[in-house]
C-alpha cells in the first residue's frame, strides 16, 4: 500500500471513530489484532458488542467506497470476533457487525454508518 493509501486509512479510522462516538457508541478497542486477522474498531452500543469495519476512500479514486463486505472478509471478521470474545472473556454479549464508510473529498469528508452490515458468518 502506498504512503498516501496508509494516510487515507489512518485518517479514515479517525473519522470513523469520531462518527461512532457521535452516534453514542463507546469505543473499546482499535486495531485489535490476533493471529487470524484484525478488526478496525470494537465498540459498545447499548447491550451489543459491535465489530466495526472501516472502509475509506478518496473521492477521486475508483468511485464511492464499496459498502459491501465480501464473503471471505465476513468470515475472517467473524473468526477474529470469536477470538476477541474468548480473549476478553465477553462471551455472553450480543454481537453485531457494522461498517463505517468514509468518503474524503476536497469539499469535505463524509461518514456513513451501516448498522448490522452483515451477520456472523462462521458456524
Amino acid at each position: 500500500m502506498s504512503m498516501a493509501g496508509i494516510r487515507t486509512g489512518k485518517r479514515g479510522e479517525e473519522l470513523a471513530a469520531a462518527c461512532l462516538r457521535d452516534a453514542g457508541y463507546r469505543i473499546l478497542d482499535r486495531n485489535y489484532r490476533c493471529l487470524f486477522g484484525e478488526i478496525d474498531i470494537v465498540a459498545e452500543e447499548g447491550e451489543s458488542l459491535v465489530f466495526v469495519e472501516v472502509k475509506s476512500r478518496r473521492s477521486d479514486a475508483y468511485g464511492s467506497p464499496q459498502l459491501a463486505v465480501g464473503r471471505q472478509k465476513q468470515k475472517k471478521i467473524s473468526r477474529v470476533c470469536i477470538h476477541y470474545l474468548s480473549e476478553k472473556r465477553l462471551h455472553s454479549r450480543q454481537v453485531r457487525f457494522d461498517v463505517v464508510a468514509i468518503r474524503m473529498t476536497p469539499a469535505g469528508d463524509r461518514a456513513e454508518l451501516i448498522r448490522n452490515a452483515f451477520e456472523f458468518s462462521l458456524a
Partner: protein
Amino acid sequence: MGKNRTMEPLEREARVAGYRLIAGIDEAGRGPLAGPVVAAAVILPPDYDHPLIDDSKRLTARQREALYEVIQREALGVGVGVSEAPLIDSMNILQATLRAMGEAVLALRIRPDYLLVDGLQKIPLSLPQKTLVGGDRRSLTVAAASIVAKVSRDRIMEICHRQFPQYNFLRNKGYGTLEHRQAIVKYGRCKFHRRSFRVVGIDDLPGNRDLGF
C-alpha cells in the same frame, strides 16, 4: 469423578520429563447437525488444582459457566479454535476437529512445550504431544479445555440462534433433537447446517429435497 489426585499424573509425568507449559486440548460439537466444532487449549499453572474441574459432560451448564470464568482467570493461557459447518462438509469432521485444535493451540498467547490431546489423533503441529482417549476424565488440563470448548461453542450457537431462531439452537445447540429435526423438515437447512451430516427421518426419505437457505 472424585478427587483430582487422579487427574494429575499425566501433567506430573510431563513435568518430570522437563516440560513446563503443558496445554490440554479438547473439543466440543462433533456430533451436532449444525454449528461449528470448537476446540480449546488451556495451560494451567504448575500444580494447579480445582476440586470442581471435571469432564464437561459431567457438569451442569451452570457449573460449566462458572468454571469457564475460573479457568479464564487462573489459566496461564486459553485459546479457542473453530471449524465451521462448510469446512466440516469439505474436509470431514475428524479433519475439521484436528484443524480447530491446531487453531486453538496457535491462538494461545504463550507457546506450550507439550500437548495433552483428547482422542486418538495427534494434532498436525510440530510439538511434543500425547493423545488420551477419554482425556477429559484423566487430565485436569484436558478437562479444563473441555469446559472452555463447550461454553465457547454454546455461545456461538446463541449467536446462530439469533439469526435463525426457528431451529432453537439456544436449546439444542445444533444437536438433532426431535424439535430440531422437525424444524428442518418445515424450514429446510440454513447456512449453519452441516450438509454432509445425515439427518435421521429426513435424509432417508426417498425423493428428499434440500430446501436450504
